[in-house]
């Protein structure tokens, strides 16, 4: 039988701290770090201070991808928001709801990515409730990234977004998969089974465009090396690929 005794105040405090904060535990500095070589080569063992933990930084192709994908996603939200009032099929409404949820979160993820790197965040992210963190650098000193190289790939990087004048003749030269204003209007006018079919066809087209953008990122001179962007972009490709498959199945079920 355990002794019965009244715990001291100190014991109470210790117990409380343990329950709330069990993290006062070990932070172990790696005294040594192993640097393997290519197969067949020996490893080198160096002190932690000697090891280079400098990973590739983002380049303009990455920034551009994230900015453009936010805008691309924004149109998917517009399309999805038409569904509750117009779709006839419950599975189409549910799909639209899922796409909407996924892409709102992804827009915020992309906004965080841009914000952390001091890059311009498209206005639409703020409208969706994205808030900059106080501890990340404020916008948008592109000059700070001049030494990342390869910015010549992408003229946007040389401009401050706020001063961007743009070239009107290119205004309709959109990203892959974007619906034209006329197509958006046609979708907004459709109802019932017509809407269901048009929504699925349009969203498949829209998703295919996003996949093209991912492939373009990885085909760029220096994009996709940043530690976070590879995973995000790869997931856009795989998730939307699966959604395309699902939408094609829904189209077939609808007998279109």
């Amino acid at each position: 039988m355990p002794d019965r005794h009244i715990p001291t105040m100190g014991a109470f405090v210790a117990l409380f701290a343990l329950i709330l904060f069990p993290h006062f535990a070990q932070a172990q500095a790696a005294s040594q770090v192993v640097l393997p070589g290519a197969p067949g080569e020996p490893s080198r063992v160096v002190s932690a201070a000697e090891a280079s933990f400098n990973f590739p930084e983002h380049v303009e192709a990455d920034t551009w991808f994230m900015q453009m994908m936010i805008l691309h996603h924004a149109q998917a939200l517009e399309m999805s928001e038409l569904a509750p009032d117009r779709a006839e099929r419950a599975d189409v409404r549910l799909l639209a709801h899922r796409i909407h949820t996924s892409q709102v979160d992804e827009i915020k993820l992309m906004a965080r990515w841009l914000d952390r790197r001091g890059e311009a965040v498209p206005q639409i992210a703020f409208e969706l409730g994205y808030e900059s963190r106080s501890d990340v650098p404020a916008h948008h000193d592109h000059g700070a990234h001049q030494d990342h190289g390869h910015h010549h790939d992408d003229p946007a990087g040389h401009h401050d977004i706020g001063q961007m004048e743009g070239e009107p003749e290119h205004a309709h030269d959109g990203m892959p998969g974007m619906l034209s204003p006329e197509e958006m209007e046609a979708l907004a006018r459709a109802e019932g089974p017509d809407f269901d079919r048009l929504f699925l066809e349009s969203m498949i087209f829209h998703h295919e465009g996003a996949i093209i953008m991912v492939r373009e990122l990885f085909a760029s001179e220096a994009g996709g090396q940043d530690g976070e962007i590879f995973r995000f972009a790869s997931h856009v490709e795989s998730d939307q690929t699966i959604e395309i498959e699902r939408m094609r199945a829904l189209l077939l079920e609808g007998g279109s």
Partner: protein
Amino acid sequence: MTNDLTSRRAVARGALRRMGAAVFSAALLLLIPLSGALHAQAASDEDPPVWWDTEDPRIGLGAGWLDAETAILNMEFLSNTERPEGFYDPDNVGNLGLANSDLAFQGDLVFVGSFAGWNAYDISDPMAPELVTSVLCPGGQGDLSVYRHLLFMSVEAGNGRIDCGTEGAPGPVNPERFRGIRVFDISDLDNPVQVAAVQTCRGSHTHTLLEDANDPDHIYVYNSGAAGVRSPEELEGCIGEVPEEDPDASALFRIEVIKVSLDRPEEAHIASQPRVFADDETGDIAGLWPGGDHGEGTQRSATTNHCHDITIYPDLGLAAGACSGNGILLDITDPVNPVRVDEVIDTNFAYWHSATFNNDGTTVIFTDEWGGGTSPRCRAGDLPEWGANSLFRIVDGRMEHAGYFKLPVPQTDTENCVAHNGSLVPVPGRDIKVQAWYQGGISVFDFTDPANAFEIAYFDRGPISDDQLVVGGQWSSYWYNGLIIGSEIARGLDVLRLTPSEHLTENELRAANLISFDEFNPQHQPRVEWPDHPDVARAYTDQLVRSGAVTAEQRQMLFEVLDGWEAGGTQQANAVMSLREAVGMLQEGIATSSSEDQRRMRLLSGTLNGLIEAAAN
């Protein structure tokens, strides 16, 4: 409209080369909101139902990186060991380039994968794990498996280099790039050496080891490549489409089987690339395409074309593949030539992520990594069927959907959360799994009845930040030799253990802790066989008391008999006589009990008979 879309498809292809021009119009869009106001929430007809206990202590935990508030139920927190210096970015603790990933176990060693390499810890003192070695070798995800003196690592990201350098490998074609399976010789843990690096077209998202009973000199690696197919100019034969004239040239719709000689691992190579999605009758490599040909203009690259994760259960000769849009079962009797035996679709699933069998091989759990693990998918408004576990009964080799299980408490919108990696807790007579839910923490649940899974223990931290989502949380949480080991993306290595509760008795825990593995790779499921031990009999008895099939008084009598058996000598001889009576009574009980109680009574009888025999010897 269809024609419009088709023609725009051609426009889209042209736009591939004109994306530079699109910059200007897009830059304008940065300033101009699209038509109308968008909404953070899609319109829904009604408020979502309250599916959680509003008093759950996991709700409202204070935020923090290493000082978040925590809530714990029926577990004991033993230690947290932060990532070593260099393996985290203090200015961005959620930086995925330095995230902790999956785990592998050998003896007292835990190997913790990282997007930047791997770390090994000695956990012989679970209160104070000790860092043994740190290896810097970026490429993500860094999922690991260990087999004797060899450690295997998955590399999928474009910055992976053959020489493990940190500087990356930019460009669409780069001869220095490595994506695939690395093999390290860890004979000298102070100085691990990369001995092989097998390149694959899509890199390696995860992998699974498989032994061949007829060939002890080799180990096989099932590789699941999920990312994009690289250029054939970088690696010969990497075709990212399905060429009409030669579909079999495609790098899609397959897995790789890598053969590794234990004595000469440097000769590791791809032994086969099985078409596990092929249609049995037509031979179409994209056999799981729903509804077959979708007509002209459809793009055949977009379908179930890869596996994310494959869990093998060698004793059953089965593997469960979580393969983008499908869950599949493979017969792996011939390791180099796995054959698909069944497939299922769940329309609630976004992304089939990983699989776990129960010990009997009668149930399989698939997880849905909706959102890829970096999004909040456990909020109050997220449907309980989305981003969850989907449980299937395996009946005559076919999967039948039985139910869902999702973390039963909502998380905030600054916590990435979705079903992720876990393993079985070997409590005899029950199916129990411990599972990681990223920032949803660790959840332990009973799925003995796959239609009615329920939670029995948990551990949860508050979000890393409460004003913005910073990626973190449990990547993997596994049971290993009496401990729960968690790989926390941003906070390091967690060690916990289960404690007795109304859901799990001390006897059940003791029985689980009779099991120990010399080596454990969670995607390689061993069949657990419990010894004929009094604690196992006590565990079954506790379960029969819980279901009401046995009274507390009967239990007390049986436990006294088991105490006598353990005492040895004449007490054991007397106990054996009583055990024979008990077995006789159980046989009578079986005739009048529910099927679940029958099952446990048979198990208990078996253990008691084992004890009787052991005493006779």
